[in-house]
């Protein structure tokens, strides 16, 4: 394996490792949720391998189990995942020079946490092998961690107390990613605007309010980066 690739993978793994611990409770919660909804072990893990997106899995599952029309299931999934279109566009330059056969699995592996910590250097480093390693190292680690702990959750679901509000661990996991991101002012403005808008627009059909709120947050952050004086690293 290329030396630069390995060096990149090592750096990426190191920067993602602490954050990746946050995936564990979240994966356990997802595994428990899939089983509680009535899926067998094979079905739960099949969905988990095909989709590999906790939020979309947990949110579409009630629709799927209720026999909702396929178009509604597909649109709901798409609405929840449109943020990935934005992430994909934002990190795409980091894959300049990487062959197509490696870009396709990279797309499959793109998750929030890796995007959050790796994008900046993905866009700054020249060597594509280093960049690919820097992305794939933490991404593959995240994938293994996710799959194994969802399986643990699926298998262990029966043993857990049902009334412990364990789903709240998913919210804590998202906060652990969000808080360090919001330390510069435009980011904080983006987060606050997105959060408030999402609460106000929660009544929109098909969870579309989440998408609109994300767009509002992005615009607010962008405007703030132009308007506020102390914009470090903009």
């Amino acid at each position: 394996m290329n030396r630069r690739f390995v060096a990149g993978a090592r750096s990426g793994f190191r920067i993602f490792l602490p954050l990746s611990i946050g995936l564990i409770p979240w994966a356990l919660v997802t595994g428990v949720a899939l089983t509680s909804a009535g899926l067998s072990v094979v079905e739960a893990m099949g969905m988990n391998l095909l989709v590999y997106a906790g939020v979309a899995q947990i949110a579409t599952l009630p629709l799927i189990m209720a026999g909702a029309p396929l178009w509604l299931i597909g649109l709901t999934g798409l609405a929840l995942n449109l943020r990935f279109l934005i992430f994909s566009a934002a990190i795409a330059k980091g894959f300049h020079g990487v062959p197509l056969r490696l870009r396709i699995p990279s797309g499959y592996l793109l998750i929030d946490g890796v995007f959050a910590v790796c994008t900046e250097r993905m866009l700054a480093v020249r060597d594509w092998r280093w960049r690919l390693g820097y992305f794939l190292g933490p991404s593959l680690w995240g994938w293994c961690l996710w799959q194994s702990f969802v399986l643990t959750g699926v298998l262990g679901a029966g043993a857990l107390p049902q009334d412990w509000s364990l789903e709240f661990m998913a919210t804590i996991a998202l906060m652990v990613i969000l808080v360090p991101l919001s330390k510069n002012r435009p980011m904080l403005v983006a987060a606050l605007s997105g959060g408030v808008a999402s609460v106000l627009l929660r009544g929109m059909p098909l969870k579309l309010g989440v998408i609109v709120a994300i767009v509002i947050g992005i615009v607010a952050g962008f405007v703030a980066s132009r308007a506020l004086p102390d914009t470090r690293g903009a």
Partner: protein
Amino acid sequence: MDGIWLWISFVLVSMATHLPRGSFIVLGQRASLPPAVQGALRYAPAAALAAIVAPSVFVVDGDVQPFNPKLAAAVVVLVVTLRWKNPWLPFIVGMGVLLGLRKGLGF
């Protein structure tokens, strides 16, 4: 829903996930967004995470509840995350506060 329909819906949600994820990474040089949009996109992760988190802590049964156990736990998680680096602490303390309020005090 069972059997083949279940798997068809899984494939559908899979496509709804991986088309957006792969989009620009796979298209590469053939497609790009204008630089102004690229700059604005830096704010996407924070906006998206907040848009997912906020309703789950402020909204209870469809209504905004300024005083609820999840919000109290979220505030504590915020303080813990800002103050300490330990990756387990937010989960332990956050769940502790939530369960303490729900079970201990009956909220």
